[in-house]
């Protein structure tokens, strides 16, 4: 039985690519030996989910560089001289002065966070500081030897977008040859952080030091000239051009003939076999990624940033990628590897920085952790949130029965079955891209099901109805994306209100009432939705639906990217609605939110929904394993 399920899991992971190309992968030449056998990463599924939700507390730490490193095989190359950059602010110049020696500023002993029972931590009322750092497990080099200067040192980096602090006081040290993972959920600030390193964004405060010198990286080209290369999650390439032509576009000053020759040379050297004259359109995602890596290698990187590289790869392609990255690291190139796939990180990286809500919350050696312990460690503590009062749970208001939606581009829903009952908040957890938006569209009627009976409201089959008729049947919906889906930025609040109320009639003064009841702050009597901050617009969107007094409310990511105050208002409103006898479905990637709100939870994984679990009987670890694709029976 167990063996069967493993087979199914692995098949599914292939099948998402099956439509695009044949399952057989072009063999990569010159792989010396399989360093990370596929089975090591994709092996016993029940024990090691390959994708685990990341969530943890908020104490910033960084660790000294790893000492163990192989001598560079690559001859030293001439580097452009590093220009001294003026400190960004007063504070940062102090930091520079304090941190004058190249060695890490504070001799903080890197530590493994002690594993704490999550249930206990959920009880903690306030943000609990991390326990004191403990000495690292023996065998892992702790102290940074004096002879290896760190390549990159980030000190106190912060970046805010309006009121949202995307990155807050992040410090990080990278040595040559180090394979360092940056872990965190979507929106934790990983991408913002690396965009600052790559010169796409400028930090508000803090310093970036390369080889011990503070630098200002104004643009990606400045980053490239300093030896920083980045492989993006989505490649920006010209489909109609050949590999060599695509590279020539981004490497001005090199002849096409040189580029062709270099592509072949690098291809042989690293096992990145790509024929330079092939058209981009004919390449698979993995091959396109190789082109991107070759592009970086042509610019002699000392630091290679990889943004979610395996999300587009098959297991074999990921395997081949790791061989290349190992090889590069052996030659002294530092790798900053962004991922939320813990198995990948454990297979590749010897150090990891964990981020949450813009802050560094932990550093560790992922190889000394199991995936489960990493996941558990990451869910450190929770911010105080209103607790749901136990309400009288009645009969099922929303019944979803074997809901199937075939999706061309996205995730297909495969037999979703659950019921949300009167007075209940039902959580649907899962990491990003497991079918959440497809499920929302199917429940809202934007993508109606073929079978009317697949969705029932109070016994009435609504599966084939459009959003308008489902609203009239007593449903309400709040999608994840605020501007452009839940609301229209170029319309006034009154018109945005009308978007979901025209089905059931408008009441005079309702918008003013809504703004008052949900504390929606904005200037003017009837401002455009685009003028509202994210938190205020989200309060408007959720409040708009709650004012309709629905019997079933479906919300996706109700507090995504909003400030803590707005999140509290929204959570309270949802709990009150449930207490009044509505059934609420919360689709969320935020485990803290699920724990704070829900009575029961099920996990969405590759378009399939697990058995619902009673919240009081479930731990974060167990949810993490379910998110990785394990079945309920294996976990409990």
């Amino acid at each position: 039985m167990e063996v069967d399920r493993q087979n199914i899991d692995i098949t599914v992971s292939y099948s998402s690519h099956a439509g695009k190309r044949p399952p057989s992968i072009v063999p990569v030449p010159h792989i010396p030996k399989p360093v990370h056998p596929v089975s090591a990463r994709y092996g016993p599924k029940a024990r090691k989910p390959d994708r685990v939700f990341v969530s943890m507390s908020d104490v910033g730490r960084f660790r000294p560089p790893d000492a163990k490193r192989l001598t560079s095989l690559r001859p030293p190359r001439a580097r452009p001289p590093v220009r001294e950059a003026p400190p960004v602010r007063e504070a940062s110049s102090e930091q520079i002065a304090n941190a004058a020696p190249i060695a890490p500023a504070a001799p903080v002993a890197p530590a493994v966070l002690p594993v704490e029972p999550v249930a206990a931590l959920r009880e903690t009322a306030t943000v609990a500081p991390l326990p004191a750092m403990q000495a690292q497990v023996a065998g892992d080099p702790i102290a940074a030897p004096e002879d290896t200067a760190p390549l990159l040192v980030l000190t106190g980096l912060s970046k805010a977008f309006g009121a949202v602090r995307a990155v807050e006081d992040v410090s990080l040290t990278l040595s040559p040859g180090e394979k360092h993972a940056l872990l965190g959920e979507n929106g934790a600030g990983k991408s913002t952080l690396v965009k600052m390193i790559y010169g796409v964004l400028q930090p508000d405060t803090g310093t970036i030091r390369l080889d011990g010198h503070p630098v200002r990286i104004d643009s990606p080209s400045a980053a490239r000239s300093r030896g920083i290369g980045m492989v993006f999650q989505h490649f920006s390439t010209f489909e109609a051009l050949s590999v060599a032509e695509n590279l020539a576009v981004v490497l001005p000053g090199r002849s096409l003939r040189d580029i062709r020759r270099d592509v072949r040379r690098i291809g042989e050297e690293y096992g990145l076999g790509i024929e330079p004259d092939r058209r981009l359109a004919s390449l698979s995602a993995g091959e396109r990624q190789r082109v991107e890596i070759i592009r970086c290698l042509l610019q002699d990187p000392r630091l290679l940033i990889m943004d979610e590289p395996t999300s587009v790869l098959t297991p074999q392609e990921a395997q081949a990628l790791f061989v290349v990255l190992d090889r590069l690291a052996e030659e002294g190139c530092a790798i900053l590897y962004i991922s939320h796939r813990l198995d990948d990180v454990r297979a590749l990286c010897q150090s990891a920085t964990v981020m949450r809500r813009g802050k560094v919350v932990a550093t560790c050696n992922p190889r000394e952790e199991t995936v489960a312990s990493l996941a558990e460690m990451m869910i450190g503590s929770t911010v105080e949130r209103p607790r749901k009062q136990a309400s009288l749970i009645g009969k099922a208001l929303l019944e979803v029965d074997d809901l199937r939606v075939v999706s061309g581009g996205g995730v297909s829903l495969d037999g979703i079955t659950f019921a949300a009952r009167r007075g209940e908040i039902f959580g649907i957890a899962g990491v990003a891209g497991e079918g959440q938006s497809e499920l929302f569209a199917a429940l809202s009627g934007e993508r109606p099901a073929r079978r009317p009976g697949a969705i029932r409201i109070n016994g009435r089959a609504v599966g084939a109805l459009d959003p308008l008729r489902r609203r009239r049947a007593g449903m309400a919906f709040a999608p994840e994306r605020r501007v452009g889906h839940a609301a229209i930025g170029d319309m006034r609040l009154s018109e945005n209100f009308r978007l979901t109320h025209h089905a059931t009639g408008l009441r005079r003064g309702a918008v003013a009432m809504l703004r008052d009841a949900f504390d929606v702050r904005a200037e003017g009597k009837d401002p455009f939705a685009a003028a509202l901050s994210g938190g205020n617009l989200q309060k408007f969107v959720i409040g708009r639906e709650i004012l309709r007094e629905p019997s079933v409310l479906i919300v996706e990511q109700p507090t995504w990217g909003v400030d803590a105050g707005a999140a509290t208002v929204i959570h309270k409103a949802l709990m009150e609605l449930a207490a009044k006898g509505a059934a609420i479905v919360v689709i969320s990637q935020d485990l803290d939110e699920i724990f704070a709100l829900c009575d029961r939870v099920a996990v969405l994984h590759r378009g399939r929904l697990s058995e619902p679990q009673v919240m009081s009987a479930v731990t974060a670890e167990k949810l993490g394993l379910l998110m990785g694709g394990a079945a309920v029976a294996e976990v409990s």
Partner: protein
Amino acid sequence: MLERRVSPSPVLAILSPVIAVALTIIAGFALFAALGKDPVKAMEIYFLSPFADAYNRSELLVKAIPLALIGSGLAICFRAGVFNIGAPGQYTLGAIFAGGVALHAPEGAAMIWLLPLTLAAGFVGGMLWGWIPAFLRVVSGANVILVSLMLTYVAALLLDWLVRGPWTDPQGRGFPKSALFPDGALMPVLLPGTRLHWGLALAVVAALALAWMLSRTRRGFGIRAMGLAPKAAAFAGFSEAKTITYVMLVSGGLAGLAGAVEVTSTIQQLQPDIAAGYGFAAIIVAFLGRLNPIGALIAALALAVTYIGGENAQILLKLPKNAAFVFQGMLLFFLLACDTLIHYRLRLRRVAGG
């Protein structure tokens, strides 16, 4: 590169068409000077002569009628984000359907009903030609722009074949023209002594009705929502397929009505050239009128000035007729440029790389 402005000036956004007209006049000045014509005199002929006397003023309105009818329909179409650029084809089909009814009306039939029937047929013809791209878009995702544009040529060739073949005038000595329409199918003249006809009332009523629909009805709300954010409109329960079909039927029908009005008033028969250029000029009308049906009414007058001014300049200055189209092109160019620069700012930046 272009950078989005945080808060575009609302005053400038309204003034954008005025600025565009002013820039067009300045550029016209330079153009005539370069052609060796007296720019002041040329400008006078272009922009003042259409208002000089009663005849010119009535002709201005005659030209504005089809432009306003098509332009106000296109305004709601573009408002929904559906780019119907096949109005010339819908106009031609309207003319064909209207001609079909007018030419085949039995002798001595109740004359009162003939004109309304003819105009209704024109409306239906335009709707049919607008429905085809909408249907293909809804069923198979075909591009509305391409399909509607290509149907324009189909319509023009259909008309050509009809007036050379089945519907050619037996007394026409082989000229590619149909017989003249019976009197009962002709538009009554509004002002005696001019060509100004009751189509003016139709254009005004159509624009007012569309403006009301767009701002006051649920359907109009759905159209605006879809144009601004298609996903949000679908979420609000407005079916994309229904909205596309609706705006294509309305804008096609109005273009067809314009064709019917034109052949029953100024042309009075079918011929290969029935001034389908109105269909493209109406795109300018729609944008110049800020995609607002009432605005389109005013913009139609502005475009009519370039037509009448162009004809006068052709007679008085021996300028080619195409100069009028140059003016129209410049107007659209400046208008779009103004709109872009009001919402975006130009930022000169070193090209990254190297």
